[in-house]
């Protein structure tokens, strides 16, 4: 069917399957394919041409989602990392902290996951590896209190950034989502402004639930950006397309491995190419 010049119904189905397999979801997959069918109506393009057109369409769709990191004015700038269980928050916190430190800035980490077994130990170990200072209380402590302490410490010691790791939580758990709002208010009380960055960490292997995650975390803290992790596998992370379309939340970084150096900036063109191929 491919490369034979004439596009058949099968070709369009194949294209839709490709998009579905990438987790963009049935609505957007159908929409993108209809747009391409209109564009190539009456023509006989080769498969390569159609694929290139699709890549272009996806890239265009996502081009507004690119927001390269720009240092916030206020110091310390607070970066709050939130997301569902196991999405890669703790690892990402240290990756980002390490990256900021690599630019010559002083970074402090706050272990605000006081719930999960050995969460504080994990952040401390990773912090040691990245040579970043960690502020923590005992397991079971109030996360807001940890953030308050860490922020007070960052302010008095002149840290440029405070990176806050939080406990994983499923977005449908109201009390846990309200806890995040409380953490933001703690920061606001001390700084006179909420955390500069409120970032949702999303696992690239997650399917359509990513949309619900983005909606409800956005309601809870007002997300300023996304980080998509585990893109080092075959998952395309296509669920960010419907998220971007529905909520307009930009994507800052991509996690591409378990090592602390495995962090890259989000580039719409590269992301589109990887998704379509």
């Amino acid at each position, binding site marked *: 069917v491919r490369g034979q010049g004439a596009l058949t119904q099968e070709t369009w189905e194949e294209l839709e399957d490709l998009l579905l397999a990438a987790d963009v979801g049935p609505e957007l997959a159908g929409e993108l394919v209809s747009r391409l069918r209109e564009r190539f109506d009456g023509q006989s393009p080769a498969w390569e041409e159609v694929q290139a057109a699709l890549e272009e369409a996806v890239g265009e769709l996502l081009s507004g989602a690119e927001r390269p990191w720009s240092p916030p004015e206020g110091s310390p700038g607070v970066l709050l990392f939130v997301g569902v269980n196991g999405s890669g928050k703790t690892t990402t916190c240290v990756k980002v902290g390490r990256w900021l430190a690599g630019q010559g800035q002083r970074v402090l980490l706050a272990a605000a996951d006081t719930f999960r077994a050995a969460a504080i130990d994990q952040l401390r170990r990773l912090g040691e590896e990245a040579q970043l200072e960690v502020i923590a209380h005992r397991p079971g402590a109030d996360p807001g209190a940890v953030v308050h302490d860490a922020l007070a410490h960052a302010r008095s010691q002149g840290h440029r950034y405070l990176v806050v790791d939080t406990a994983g939580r499923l977005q449908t758990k109201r009390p846990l989502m309200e806890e995040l709002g409380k953490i933001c208010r703690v920061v606001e009380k001390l700084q006179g402004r909420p955390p500069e960055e409120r970032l949702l960490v999303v696992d690239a*292997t997650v399917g359509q639930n990513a949309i619900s995650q983005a909606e409800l975390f956005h309601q809870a803290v007002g997300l300023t950006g996304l980080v998509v992790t585990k893109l080092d596998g075959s998952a395309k992370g296509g669920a960010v397309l419907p998220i971007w379309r529905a909520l307009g939340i930009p994507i800052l970084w991509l996690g591409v491995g378990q090592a602390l150096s495995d962090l890259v900036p989000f580039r719409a063109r590269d992301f589109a190419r990887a998704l379509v191929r």
Partner: protein
Amino acid sequence: SLTERLTQIFRNLGGKGKLSEADVRAGLRGIRQALLAADVHWQVARELLGRVEEQALGAKVLQSLTPAQQLLAIVRQELARTMGGQAQSLRLTGRPATVLVVGPAGGGKTTTCGKLARWLSKKGRHPLLVCCDPQRPAAAEQLATLARQVEVPFHNAPNPETDFPAALKKARQELRDVVIVDTPGVPPGEAPPGWLAQFVKVHSPGDVLLVLDALTGQEAAQIAAGFLPLGVTGVVLTKLDGDARGGAALSIPARLGCPIVLVGVGERPSDLEPFYPQRMADRILG
């Protein structure tokens, strides 16, 4: 609900009470959208609906007074049948029985190990929790903490080749009859490490449980397939306490013939339940 939506589709097209084949196909397209939105693999959805169409183009649906209900009944039955029809259980063979827990990074293995230990203790067994994850920072601490919570002994085996025999020895000495083994999360796109395949060869665990996140999308069957060489005996689907529809519960048995045996429904040690295909079918259909 899906029943309402289907009834709407049939009302708009069905016209004078009698449904045509074209109407049924329109209904199936609506169901397809629901399955895809539930993260069912696109190919699995296609094949399943193909089987449903054969059954649905009979008098049962076409002449039914409630065609939407009738069509959904066929779909629901086909889903439940594909997912195994009835609840499965652990084999727990061997003395001591060894349960190897494997899976992709962050799926919930370590937490599930703790849950399994509690589950088996409640059933009158005497588990030992063993950590064979030397790479994740504080993995041993995490499992040791869970072990304390569920009042089960813990053994660290960071170098599985030399340390696991010591764990078995400890199990025999302390009269533990089940050994639950936690392993490192495998990064997506990577095959399980060689030592894991070697472990399976040497120790022949009676159960090899693949722990997978119910939030996983179209990649679920592909990710699971990577673990099949280890001889997976069952899948534990985690994080079903959220609003994920859990299409992976259909994709994995459909494509790989691997049964779902347990589901994780929370972060506490008690949040582990048997898998019920009928319930899952309803959840997937929304």
